[in-house]
């Protein structure tokens, strides 16, 4: 192959590879675009079944209930709207998991609308706010 042709072939291949990757990425993102759910989103879009997602919001005061097995808890996540999500989690909650503070959980929705969390994401310090939540906290503060 001539040098010029080879160069052109390579260029086309490179562009095809990167474009292909980006397209693949974008199509995967389309499924993933609804990865993060706030309670208001659930009320609006319904619950996605059979898909691992993240939810986030504030732990509703007085909603944390510990199960007799000592490692499971139930609580309710709310936001500035009326909507809430009941959550069940089996595991060790992060140190800064408290009532009326922000929480992000990873897991799956059940058919009855309960969210079974496989992981409660740790916060790095008491000032840390997951980026997805910072705005909502802001909103609810300005409402008060």
């Amino acid at each position, binding site marked *: 192959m001539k040098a010029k042709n080879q160069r052109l072939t390579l260029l086309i291949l490179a562009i095809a590879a990167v474009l292909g990757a*980006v397209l693949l990425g974008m199509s995967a993102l389309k499924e993933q675009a609804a990865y993060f759910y706030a309670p208001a989103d659930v009320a609006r879009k319904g619950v996605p079944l059979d898909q691992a997602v*993240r939810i986030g919001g504030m732990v509703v005061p007085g909603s944390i209930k510990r199960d007799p097995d000592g490692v499971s808890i139930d609580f309710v996540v709310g936001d500035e709207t009326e909507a809430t999500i009941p959550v069940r989690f089996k595991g060790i909650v992060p140190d800064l998991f408290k009532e009326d503070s922000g929480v992000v959980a*990873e897991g799956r929705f059940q058919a009855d609308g309960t969210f079974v969390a496989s*992981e409660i994401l740790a916060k790095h310090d008491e000032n840390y706010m997951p980026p997805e939540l910072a705005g909502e906290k802001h909103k609810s503060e300005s409402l008060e």
Partner: protein
Amino acid sequence: MIAEAGLAALWLAAALSLLQLCLGAFALRPGGEGLLRTVRPVAAVQAALVAISFFCLILLFLRTDLSVALVAANSHAAKPWLYKFAGTWGNHEGSMLLWVAVLAIAGGAVALFERKLEQRTLIATLAAQAAIGLGFYAFLLFSSNPFERLNPPAAVGQGLNPLLQDPGLAFHPPTLYFGYVGISIAFSFAVGALITRDVGAAFARAMRPWVLAAWIFLTLGITAGSYWAYYELGWGGWWFWDPVENASLMPWLAATALLHSVTVLATRDALRAWTVMLAVVAFSMSMIGTFLVRSGILTSVHAFAVDPERGFFILILLTLYIGGALALFGLRVGTVREGATFEPVSREGTLVLNNLLLSAILGIVLVGTLYPLGVEAVTGEKLSVGPPYFNSAAGPIALALVVFMAAGPLVRWRRDRAPEVVNRIALPVLISAVTLFALVLFAPGIGLFPLFGLTLATGVAAASVAPLWKRNLRRTPLFTWGMVAAHLGIAVSLAGMASESAFTQETLVAVPVGETVEVGPYSVRFDAVQPVAGPNWTAIEATLTARRGDGKPIVLKPQARMFSSPPTETSEAAIATRLGGQLYTVLGKGDAGGRWQLRLWWKPFVTLIWLGGGLIALGGVLSLIGRVRRERKVQLQEAWA
């Protein structure tokens, strides 16, 4: 006084970098030959001044000088000295000073040690390095001065984020920075070569050791960061696809591609424009990473409180450098003469494929990392992209990459015959097939990724050592050993990842003291809980005794720590490393009934993940030594002749 000395040194270094840029620019003009010799010493002195400035900041932190705003905000007198030392870069200003210091020291090292590069290209390279430095000096001096005084001085310091109070964190950031910022050298080399139109095999041979060195640090930094997240966060996971992790992975992917394409350029004089482009891309990824981590756009343990103005400043620098380099590339790429061509079935061919697949993975990670930011900027909607996206989009390409990585070293340079290649890869393929068969037979239902992962890992391991087959091992060049070690490292890491996800066993319980819990092959007795106190924390500590069959008991002491300044709780996992894997224990909360939560994992062969990372870096070191030694030998022979 120390603070003022540090600041003065920083200003002087900034002035020298401006001088370095101007001298370089004039030296390259017709009639400027007399200035060519002035640039190297300026670069060396600039590096020394930045080192002094950084040293001053370390001193201030070690002494906990509370009249310096940065120290007061980020340190505390009651902290162990190691964390006072590490606290120097555990904050925005200090880490940016470290950034600039590494940048200038890398430039100084090139000025002092680079002998192979053509002189005019070297001067252009140093000028480019000075131009990058200048932007970051301006950033530091005008918006993030680390030496700012506090009047009146603070009475007590505020302390360091307890998650950062870990020996690993003392060394992880500098290592990562050496890699991250070291890539700037590759960028400057590329810009230099574009300016003097000197892209060719000799240029690639000069550039290769510098790329290799930066890549080694980057590999080590990522490996160490992954292990830190694994043991410090207490989740038992080793990679989270966090944007901050991606920020270091993206330059690594680009640098890995660059490392391979620079070899093609050095050996066969092909891929000229592509290699230069990759150098620009690799540094762009470093800049994007710096932007993500330092702009305050992300909230994470790495993103210290930062105001938007600083983010904007970095964004401008990013646009300026990447845009400038791309413009230069666009203008000059037409004049880069075409290199050699190559046959598709050849070592070059496989390396091109490696580059394409690495670029594809890079594209996927980049899209996933930037997409949420883009959406937020446009629509204001906040969303996050998580592991499912990255695993499903990048995973298959990564596995394909590993397949070609195994085959690559078994293909000859220039031209090879397909049937012979098939012959050479027959044995590794057979070994893979046996593994697959054994797994399906003895470990059914372990999932697709572990199945393919382990199968590939054995095949790659066999293919990696194959280049040593029937060779006189003592006469095999060191860089061949390096390639073998690095590729073997990938196989080892892959085996670790696959077995971790296939065979991990977990037990989660709430039990009173005295109870025994089973996890994997271990029975773990919960002996006691007691309060303990450290230098700047108090903790609840559990004593666990683990026993495997009739084996020797292992004592583990996981803690839940409370720091008072700033008030934070962290959980310190206790991990026992055995040949077959790791026993990972976490202490949770106690309840009113006297029970304590315990989370126990038995993770077979999990250590292979980081052992592989170490092996990859070791491969880099061997190659580097091999290359430098060979060059020296050639130089000596030339001098002799």
